[in-house]
């Protein structure tokens, strides 16, 4: 089920020569070709893969080569001149990113000349930079700050007026991105992102020399589907996103590895939060899914996680709706299910819910003996995401339809599904909707009315809609940031998301609400955790046996036990 391709550090392309043809078949006696080079870093020989850039190779050797314009997935332009190193046999200092790897290459990264050249370059970069870190959103995750601290001199000898870009500062250049050219260091990462990854090429260099600036062609907006990534790849505060600008200093933010809820591509994200508030999503490196990128739609769903309209459990008593405790609400549901024939109970799972939650719902249905179960998903326009090697496409408005189906949320023989219920062919007495946030069931008053025909209607929800208003019992459910679990994406990849913070009581994660219901129905153990549910899934669900905890960590483990959000690359 899960893709076990080993993750490799990016082949960010050393400048490649003319495309080589297929290698000639080697005679059987020849030794197998080595797929590594031996490179000497400061005299220490290190084996490095052939397909990496010298900067990445050095990183594998534990040596940091400072850089700005180099990015593992963008073409190498060698123009920030920060990655200068000495190469044995070449008198002049060289840019590491443009130096092709070869066997026996001897790289010196600590010589006096290297240190001086880096300091010189930092001085040049800063002479026209406003140094407005106190009011700059990039502060804290700024490569210019980091490299200045690491490799620059404390003092500048520049005593002239700094360059200004009147009319090109603090200006929106698209729906999400705000540009401030006074901070720009002309690394062209954003330009290359738009050309090479997005393929839209909105950005370009204007003018030349010391007046060079990055702007959009003819003032057309930077409005591709991934425009936020242009701000991600910006090493300084020249491009920032309108949505996150001035909202929080980045060093206050805690990061939780998660999976984007926007569609079934399941891009790996980092939920950046503070005091139980989600501030932003950043892409989290996973070469097999979203690589370094995240689409604008998914990225700016972050604010939706802060929505909380259903704060308490409620139950209808005659015509009045009363606030109740969650256990009492669960009790009402259990009572209603028990009071009805199993064939008249309909369980509706959700493509928004995790595998664990959908699994639990199916187990409840099994336990009750109801064959009527289904899962609901809204379709969206096709979304595309560039993995390291290929485009991935998704067209669901939720992350986990595939997983919900895998968990068995399809009508059993003799049972019926959502279609039959909505078309009136089937008339359940009790309807349990595990997640109400779907336009397919809640957006249309007629459909709500059809569901309402049941004697008893229970829903779990975080946001209010026509369905929650119509329900007999409403359970307050937690958001994605407030729970852990796994999603199965369009590739069949099972990916884990972690809890960023606890839900505000009495709201609880869906799995907990479902577990309470299961226990009330006389099944399951109150002490189960998502981990226990995952173990059961591994044991019971076909194709999930090889999904181990290790694999679920997802992304690239930059350091054991930690992960790096792309903001820091």
């Amino acid at each position: 089920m899960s893709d076990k391709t080993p993750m490799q550090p990016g082949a960010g392309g050393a400048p490649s020569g003319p495309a080589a043809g297929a290698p000639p078949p080697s005679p059987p006696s020849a030794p197998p070709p080595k797929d590594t080079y031996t490179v000497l870093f400061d005299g220490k020989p290190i084996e490095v893969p052939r397909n990496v850039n010298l900067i990445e190779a050095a990183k594998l050797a534990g040596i940091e080569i400072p850089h700005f314009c180099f990015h593992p997935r963008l073409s190498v332009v060698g123009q920030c001149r920060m990655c200068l190193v000495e190469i044995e046999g070449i008198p002049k200092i060289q840019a590491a990113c443009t130096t092709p790897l070869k066997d026996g290459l001897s790289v010196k990264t600590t010589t006096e000349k290297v240190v001086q050249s880096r300091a010189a370059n930092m001085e040049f970069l800063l002479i026209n930079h406003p140094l407005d870190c106190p009011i700059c959103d990039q502060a804290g995750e700024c490569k210019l700050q980091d490299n200045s601290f690491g490799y620059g001199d404390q003092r500048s000898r520049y005593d002239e007026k700094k360059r200004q870009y009147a009319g090109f500062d603090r200006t929106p250049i698209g729906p999400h991105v705000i540009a401030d050219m006074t901070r720009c260091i002309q690394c062209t990462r954003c330009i290359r992102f738009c050309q090479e990854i997005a393929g839209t090429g909105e950005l370009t260099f204007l003018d030349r020399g010391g007046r060079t600036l990055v702007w959009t062609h003819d003032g057309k907006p930077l409005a591709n589907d991934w425009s936020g990534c242009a701000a991600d790849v910006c090493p300084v505060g020249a491009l920032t996103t309108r949505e996150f600008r001035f909202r929080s200093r980045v060093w206050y933010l805690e990061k939780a590895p998660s999976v984007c809820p926007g569609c079934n591509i399941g891009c790996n994200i980092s939920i950046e939060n503070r005091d139980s508030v989600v501030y932003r999503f950043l892409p989290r490196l996973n070469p097999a899914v979203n690589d370094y990128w995240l689409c604008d739609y998914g990225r700016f769903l972050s604010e939706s996680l802060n929505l909380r309209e259903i704060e308490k459990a409620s139950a209808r008593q005659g015509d009045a709706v009363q606030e109740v405790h969650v256990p009492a609400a669960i009790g009402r549901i259990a009572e209603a299910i028990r009071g009805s024939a199993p064939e008249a109970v309909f369980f509706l799972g959700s493509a928004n819910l995790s595998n664990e939650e959908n699994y639990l719902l199916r187990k409840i249905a099994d336990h009750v003996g109801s064959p009527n179960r289904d899962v609901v998903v809204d379709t969206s326009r096709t979304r595309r995401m560039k993995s390291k090697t290929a485009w991935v496409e998704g067209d669901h408005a939720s992350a986990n339809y595939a997983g919900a189906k895998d968990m068995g949320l399809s009508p059993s023989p003799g049972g019926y599904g959502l279609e039959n219920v909505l078309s009136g062919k089937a008339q359940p007495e009790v309807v349990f909707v595990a997640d109400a946030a779907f336009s397919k069931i809640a957006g249309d008053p007629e459909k709500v009315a059809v569901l309402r025909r049941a004697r008893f209607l229970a829903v779990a929800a975080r946001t209010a809609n026509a369905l929650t208003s119509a329900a007999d019992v409403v359970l307050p459910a937690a958001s994605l940031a407030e729970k852990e679990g796994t999603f199965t994406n369009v590739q069949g990849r099972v990916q884990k998301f972690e809890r960023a913070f606890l839900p505000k009581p009495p709201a609880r994660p869906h799995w907990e609400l479902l577990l309470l219901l299961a226990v009330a129905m006389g099944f399951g153990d109150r002490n189960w955790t998502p981990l226990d549910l995952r173990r059961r899934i591994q044991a019971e669900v076909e194709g999930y046996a090889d999904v181990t905890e290790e694999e679920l960590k997802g992304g690239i483990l930059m350091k054991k036990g930690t992960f790096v959000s792309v903001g820091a690359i």
Partner: protein
Amino acid sequence: MSEKVLLARVGRRDSRSIESYLEDGGYEALRTVLTDGWTAEKLTDEVKKSGLRGRGGAGFPTGVKWTFVPKDTKGKPVYLLCNADESEPGTFKDRLLMEEDPHQVIEGVILSSYAIKCRNAYIYIRGEFYLGARILNRALEEAYAKGFLGQNILGSGFSLDVTVHRGAGAYICGEETGLIESLEGKRGQPRIKPPFPALVGVFGCPTIVNNVETLACVVHIVNRGAEWFAKIGRNEKNSGPKLYCLSGQVNRPGVYEAAMGLQMKELLFGTEYGQGMKGGRKVKAVIPGGASAAMLTAEEIEDCPLDFDGLAAKKSMLGSAAIIVMNEDTCIVEAAQNLSKFFAHESCGQCTPCREGTPWLHKVLTRIETGRGRLEDIDLLEKISNQMANGMTICVFADAAIAPVLSSVGKFREEFRYHVERKHCLVGRGASRPELVTA
């Protein structure tokens, strides 16, 4: 050498027309090569033997450069680009060749294309040379009409198309990879080397970029032999006829043809050449190879042969052989400031040290020039310069930009000091009007 070779036809009435070129024995070299069974290799060898070095500035042996085109290009076409983006300040020799004797250039292009098996050549001409582009285009039409271009030239089976492409006004497009980018329709900024253009050049194909004058020389190497060419000049490494662009405060500025290795003094004072300084003033400094070459002082131009090695020995360069003469009334600070303004304006902006360093140099020099300098600025100029070049950038633009600054500060330090302390020029306009510059 009093015989004119490259400029032989300049000044002749109707020198631009193909009829007059044919009357003077034009396209004979092409006929020789195509109909006498010369192979491309033979032509290349001949050019190698002649010792012809690139006339654009770097002085790389032309024949050797041609051999860098891979034998097997894997089906890719080979391109010849004629670099007519003559934009080095003080240089105006290619313009003369193109405007006065375009067929000589075109014949050189055809011959060189034959040598590297090129089927499509481009003449990348500086955008401001509108007249030159018009003349070249007319000459190309004539050459096509006479069968010197197009399909199956002179029945030899060799075909060639030549296109004139006008630049859009950037100095850096005279750098060969910047030129290639520009020709491809991109922003003119130099590429990372390797790969070198001979392997991956324009449109990803093997490409040779040669200067206008270089290509014109090829015609004469074929006509008169490599030995003849190699014998002209000081030695076989600095051979051939050479065009010198003399400008500045001399009596007779202009383009002069002489054997490679002409003495600087001869060029400045010889009756055939510059005929001495205007008003009999003394020489103060000479820029020997265009704005990117280090200045020489009056002492240094004694025994100064104007060729690649002669000037390299004086830590300057022949460059495009643009000799700019400054007399004793020239304020060196102002000259350096003027040159730095050019480089700050023309930096393409991709590499940090050059993008930031060239305007910085200009600002500091402007401060000194306008009487707001400080003594430490003089050292600062050297320090900034030294951290801009020598591998700090992709191309050698930064190395060129610092040459006038380093040489002027190094050789005329006292004048800079005077400028800072007195807040006005030692000589020249600024000296007589100190109140203006201190304002």
